[in-house]
Structures are given as structure tokens and as C-alpha cells.
């Protein structure tokens, strides 16, 4: 089980990388996640998640060109691997399945 399990936060991170497409690196992921969830994402937590995702093989990364705004350091761009996309899909299917089986009554109103 361990190794393929996708935590809620990791799932969000994966999706954000997909949303950001070509421009997904540390700072942009953090900003995007922060503005979408309204949560204050700590950089440490994000990097922890990225490291874990990397270990599981859900993402790969490559370095871009050096930029002045980073004091001459390169950006590390992240990409979601096929395995990552598959994990996301699995997770979505599971949820959809569960949602479809929730009886109408339990949803309350009307």
C-alpha cells in the first residue's frame, strides 16, 4: 500500500502541477495552491510533498535556465508522470463511484 497511496495534499499538488503545465516550479505551485485553497501553504510542507511524490515516481523534474530573480539559480520544473496521472484518475474514479452511490436522502435538502 505504501508507495502508491496518494494523500489529500499530495493530490492537490499533483493537480496544481497539471494546471500550471509548463510553468510548475516551487514558487508558482505554492502561490497557485495558496490562492486556490485560501490556505497558507508552508514551503517546507510543499517540498515535503514534492519529495514524496518524486519518490513514488508520480512526478519528474528538470532544471530550467538560470534567472536573475532567483539570484542566478535554476528553476526546477515539475511534470506529472504517466504513473502520476494514473494515480489521479484512480483516485477520481473511486470518488465518483462513491458519490454516485450516496443515496439522495443522505444529501439532505429537497
Amino acid at each position: 500500500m505504501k508507495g502508491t497511496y496518494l494523500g489529500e495534499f499530495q493530490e492537490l499538488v499533483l493537480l496544481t502541477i497539471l494546471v500550471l503545465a509548463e510553468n510548475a516550479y516551487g514558487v508558482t505551485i505554492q502561490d497557485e495552491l495558496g490562492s486556490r485553497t485560501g490556505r497558507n501553504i508552508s514551503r517546507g510542507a510543499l517540498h515535503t510533498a514534492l519529495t514524496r511524490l518524486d519518490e513514488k515516481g508520480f512526478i519528474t523534474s528538470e532544471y530550467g535556465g538560470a534567472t536573475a530573480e532567483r539570484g542566478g539559480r535554476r528553476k526546477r520544473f515539475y511534470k506529472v508522470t504517466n504513473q502520476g496521472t494514473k494515480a489521479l484518475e484512480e483516485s477520481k474514479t473511486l470518488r465518483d463511484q462513491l458519490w454516485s452511490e450516496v443515496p439522495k436522502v443522505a444529501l439532505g435538502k429537497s
Partner: protein
Amino acid sequence: MNQTIQDHRPPRLPQRFLRWYCKPELLEDIEGDIHEDFNKRHTRSGKRQAYLYYFLDVIRFFRPFVIKKLFKTQNTNTMFKLNTVIAFRHLAKNKLYSFINITGLAIGIAACLIIAHYVIFQLSYDKFHENADRVYRVHNNTLQNGEDLGTGFYSGYALGPSLIRDVPEIEMQSRVHPYYGGAVVNRVVDSVSMTPFREQDILFVEPAFLQMFTFNFLQGNHNTALNDPSSIVITESTMRKYFGKESDRVIGQILNVNGGWANGNYLISGVVEDFPANSHFQFDFLLPIERVLMRNQYTEEGTDWGWTNFYSYVMLSPQSTEAAAEAKMADLMHTYTPEDLEADGLKQTLSLQNVPDIHLRSEITGDEFGTVGSINSVYFMVIIAVFILLIAWINFINLSTAKATERSMEVGIKKAMGALKPQLMSQFLTESFWVNLFAIVLAIGLTYTFMPMLSEALGVNLVVDITNPTILGALGVLILIGPLLAGFYPALILSSFKTVTALKGRFVSKKSHAFSVRKGLVVFQFVISTFLIAGTFTVSRQLSFMQNQDTGIDMSKTLAIKGPDTNISLASFESFKNNMEQVAGVEAFSSSRSIPGNGYNWGTEARRSGTDRSNSGSVNVTWVDATFLNTYGIEVIAGRDFTEAQRQARNGMIINEATVEAFGLGSPEKALTEKIILSGDTMAIRGVVKDHNWQSLHKAYGPAIFLYRFASADFFSVSVSPQNTNKVISELEKQFDIAFPGNPVEYYFVDDFFNRQYKEDLAFANIFKAFSAFAIFAACMGLFGLASYSVVQKAKEIGIRRVLGASGTQITFLFSKRYLLLTVIANTIAIPITYFGIKSWLENFAFSIGITAELFLVPMVLLLVIATLTISFQTVRAAMANPVKNLRSE
């Protein structure tokens, strides 16, 4: 993307730290991210914020997955591991030794931690105000004909405004007028009064008061809360008390305050969070000062400097200094009231005291409000803490060196294998490090366990806060310094054994300096112990003396009832009085404006009739009725008691012996023929009473005068015959409610009330006892450990002596002798130190037990007994053991 973001240089230190701990493969990425964010923030919010966030980011990245393996390749790490293993084996092998060592240290450290909390609390007084550094209280020092009469803070109401006018450095000021005597407060809903409560902590203040001090407003705000003369500000807990569940919106609700100073309805305009305990003043209600200034007492001509019921706080403007402000205000009293001061031969100087200094370094010679700390008691606690820590470390040193014998073989072999001295030392230091570390962990646990007890003893709510930077710092220092300080000497001794002698196991020579040092340390421990035992003994003797001393006033069977706060008619007073006098068991009834232990009513000045004003001195006045002296059993030694009369003039005054002395009236009998001018009124002396302790025994007898007052509503006193106490109390509650409806009844035995004055002293005694016990226990553990090792070491000798016919008693004595000798030496050294310590403490009391030989003898004997018992545990056991066993084992 913002194109105008420039590149800035991030702070060096955090950057270096990051580079140090970060895994190389992650570094570029993380550093880049932080840097980019740093640049953005720099442009957006400025350098300071950017630096701060850079720093925080670096700290927040200090996570396991980021941190590289530090010291990965260094050899010291391996050695440390090896030494740790050896240390643990040793600790596990000698369980008793480890236990004594670790607990001893832990107790010492715990005591220090607890004291540190107390000291931090004491030092934190009034520092929570944002403007604490420039808020001052105005003090007034008085000299009479060159003699210092002391420093006080009370002044007339004209002082505050004139300070603002005449001293440009002062930015704002607030006069404060306490609600003397307290009041009854109740909530009013639709003109109906709810349950009344008696309240003491009510202050009249100016709106500036809310600006100078820092209040946390939960409802309302500090800019406007006291602007309206009918407004009232209350604390959170007061709000809960009066409004219970309806607390969410109390602004505009009505409270009725009734206590004589400014009666009426007030609209709640603000609720503040309860004031922290570390403030020199406390309050439950704040009222606008205009209300009290409207009283006739303060609006009549000539009362502006005369009624000294006010005190003032000022806030200086940020750029001005205390000295500059003081220079301009020093002679202000002479500018405004030159004639009065000159006629009395007085010189008054105004000065300022910074508010955070008030608690520990009050310049006031008279009474402060609230609990007063003293910087001396803080120093004292620090000294005790250091002593205890020293004792604990000395234990450690002694035990470790005593154990040297057992480890000589180990050292010898290591040396023979080629170990160098530094390597051996590092081994013993590692051991010391682990013992200290365990002790600290245990100490933190002990601190959590014992803190509630200390809080109770002190009457302050102290909470353990390990995260306090000072505490953390202290712990850090202890972890670093402790092992070195305590471990260095034993490590030095152990590692310096000569290889061959060590292997032979006969390194302990009588001349070895190790032993004289060890003895010296034991003596030092016992000097401290003697000092602490003697201190504890003195403190508890003095306290029981104070509580049981004949005060010249009969308090044990007198019941005092706090009078009603609402205005009462003379008729209801008289009916209450008559009804109470009828109750079986009531021997006497009296009404007065104050009672023993409650202070005097009026401090003023007096002089003998026929002398000029420069001969006047201060006296304290209390108003009582004709049955008061009888009720309290205060003995009249000349003249007569007051007689019942409607007017005061016929009765004159009754003075105490100290007054006779102070104004040169000759003997008590002769005084009856004299007259005294009391604050301008000439009065006859009707009687002289014996000196008695109206206040705590800290204070000497001073000139005190009783004046007659037919009826007072402040205190009623009832002298009760013991067997009827319960009946009288139930009758009292009934009658009080009938006569003064709407007033909560409050009564107490006067001796209990009087002894409340010793609350601080009791707290001090409790702390002293607790820490002495700590210290003595630690010292005994050390001695126990020493004795046990010396016995183990000499098991053979004991065996041979037994075989040759020595009795158990002889052997016990032989082995106890040298430790007892040490305690005797320690006692001798301790005597002078103890003498000065006791002497200076007893000087706090006008009435003290005095220094007697007993104060030294009892602690010395006690210590000898404790020491003997501790040692005999070991020596007796050794002496009784079967000698064959000891002789056979090799």
C-alpha cells in the same frame, strides 16, 4: 510576472545555515525558491519583512528530509557512540550510584528551574505595558528640619494638572483616586437592582490612564471609554460575575455603585481583559475621576493640595529623559504651597519612579498597594538556586571521584593499550554528559510536578513554561556547562592514574589531593545546609512568634463585622446595636472606623500645645466609640476611657505610650494635664493606653491617637464568649440583614484578620522550607553515596577488624567519625555566615525573637543527627555483615 523585481542580497547568516544543513541535491531548488520569494517581498514590503521571512523560511526548512547527514564522516562521532555505550553500561551496572547521581542532579536542576520561573515572574512586573519605559509614578520625599520623614506617593488633586502645565517633558498624566473602603455594586435592570456584591478594587482615573497603560479591550475602546462622567470600565471576570451568560454584549448596561465616594448608576463603556497578575496595581472597576472630584470635599476652597488622597502617573514624551523632567518638578510643592511647608519646617521634593521598577524597587517608605516584592528576595532566591545547583554538582563530583577505585582497572588497561589522556577524559566527560542530560529531563518532569505546590505557597499562579527564552537558555547552558563543570574534575582524576599502580588497584594513597578536595566540597555542602536549616528555623520561629505574640489587644474572641456600604440611618444602627447586645454570649459591642490589622484612619501631624509648628510629628488617628477599648481589652494605664456622648469635644483624645514619648509629655499621668494640637485643633488628653500592636509586628509602636465617634458604620466588633460563638454568628447574620438590607454580611475573627498581614511572610517561609528541604536532601544523598563507597572500599578492613574482635559499635563509630568531623567543621564555618543572614532578616521586624544561641544549636544538632543517620545506614550495615563474606570475596 512582475518585470521590475530586482535582485537583492539575502541575509548572510541564514543563508549559510541553510547551505550547511541542506542536502546538496535539494539546495539549489530550495535556495532558489526562498530567494525568489525574498526578492518579491523585498520589492513589495521592504527589506525588514523580506529579511524576516527569509530567516523564517530557512528555519522552517530545517526538516528531516532536507537535512543532510551531519558529521557523517567524522571520527569523533564514532568515539562519541562508543563512549555512550560504555557510559550506559556503567550506569546500568551501578544502579544505586546512577540513581543517586541522576536524582540528586535532577532535584537540584528542578529547584533551579522552579526558582527561575519565580524570578522571571518577579522581574516581569509591569513590563507588559507598551509604554512601560516612559510611564512613571510621582513620588514625594519629605524632610523635616533635615530629618528624612520618608517618601510617599499621595498628593492633592492639584498636582496632576500642574505637572502637565509646568513640566513640558510630561506628555500625559492621570490622577488616581482609589475607592477607599470599597463599595457595594449591583447590576440594575429596568430600575430593579440585582444581587449586590461588595467590591474593593475600584479606581477613579482619568481617560489618559487608558492611554498610558496597556489594556486589552474586549468591548469598547481605550480612546473613548472613560470620556463620559457616567461611564464605567470593568474587567472580564467582573463582567462574568455580574452578567453570567449574558456577557457577550454588556456595553450600555447599568451598574449601581454605592459606597460613599460617588454613588449612582454608571453605564458600562468598556470591558478589558483581566489584568495580568504581574502588575503593581489591580482593579475590577475603573470610574471617571470627575465623579469623585465633584464631591464637596474636593470643591471647597483650599482643598486642592490639602486632601492628599490622590496619586499620579505620568508619561514622558519619547525623547525626554527622566532626569530632565525630575529637575523641573522637584520643587513644585514649594512653588504652590510655600507657606504651609515653611511653617512646618518641611522640604518636599518630587521625583519619578519608572513603573516597572515599582514592584521590586519601590522607593516608597510607607505602604505600597498590592503585594510588594523586593529585589533582595529575588537575589536571595537566585543565591539559593545557585547553592542548590552547586550542592548537586558537588555530589556528582564526589560520587564520581569516590568511584574512582572501582574504575582504576579499566583505566589501567586502557592506558596500557595506548589510550591517551584526552581520550580517557572524553570518555568520562561523555558519561557526565549523559548523566546530566538524564537529570535535566527528569528535572523538567519534577518541575511540572512541584510547580503547583510552589504556586500555592506563593499565592501566585506560576505556570511552567519551558519555551520561555530565558528558561530555554538556562537549560542550554546547563546542558553545555553542567557536564563540563561537574565532569571535568573527576575526568581529570580518573585519567591521570598511573598505568601500573592503577592496574595493581592500589592507587588510592592517603596523600592524594583528591581526598582533600572532596572533603572540602562536603564541608561546603554542609555549610550551606546549616545556613539553610538555621534560616528555616529562624523564619518559622519568628512567624509563630508574630502570630502568637501578645499584641496588647484581645483579638481571639472578638468578631469583626464589616459595616454596610450603603448610607444607613442612625436609627437602624442603634437598633442593630441594641439587638446585638441582647444576644446571649455577646459581651460587648463596639463600632469604629478601623480595627487592628486594618491600618489607621488618618495620618496627620500633631504637636504638644505650647510648642511651635516645627516640633510637630506625624501621628495616626483612629475613630472609636466608648466601648471599643473594652471590647478589645486595650488597657488604660492613666486617665479614663471615653464616655458615651453625642459629641466628640467632651471626650478629647486617648493616646498611647508612644505618643507620650514622642511629644515629650513626661509620664502617662503627667500627660493627662497636657494638651495636644492635632492638625490645628487643640484637644485635651483624656487617657493613656498601653502600647499595642495595631499593625503587624514588622512595625514598631508609633504615636497613635484614638478619637471619639459616637457611631461608625465601617466596622462593628463583638466580643464573644467562646461557648456561644455559633449562636452569635447566626444571630448576627439575621440582625445584620434586618438592619441593613441589601448589604452582604462579612465577618471574621480579628486574630485571623490580623494574621492576614503575614501572608507574604508565610509564603516566604514556605519557599524557604521547601528549598532547604531540597538542599538538605541533596546534600544527604551525596553523603550517603560517599559513605556507601567508603564502606565498600573498606569491606576487607572491616572484616579483619571484626575478626580481631572489634564490636559493631566501635566500627560504626570509626567510620562515622570522619564524616561527623566534617559536619563539625562545616558548622563552625557556618556560624558567622548564618549570624549575619539571620540578623539582617530579623531587622525587617520591629518585634523579633532576637538572636539566641538556640537558633544555631538546634540546626547544628539537627544536621549532625541527619548526617549520622545517613552515614549509619551504611556503616551499621557494614559492621553487622558477616566478616567471612567480605574477606572471602576477591
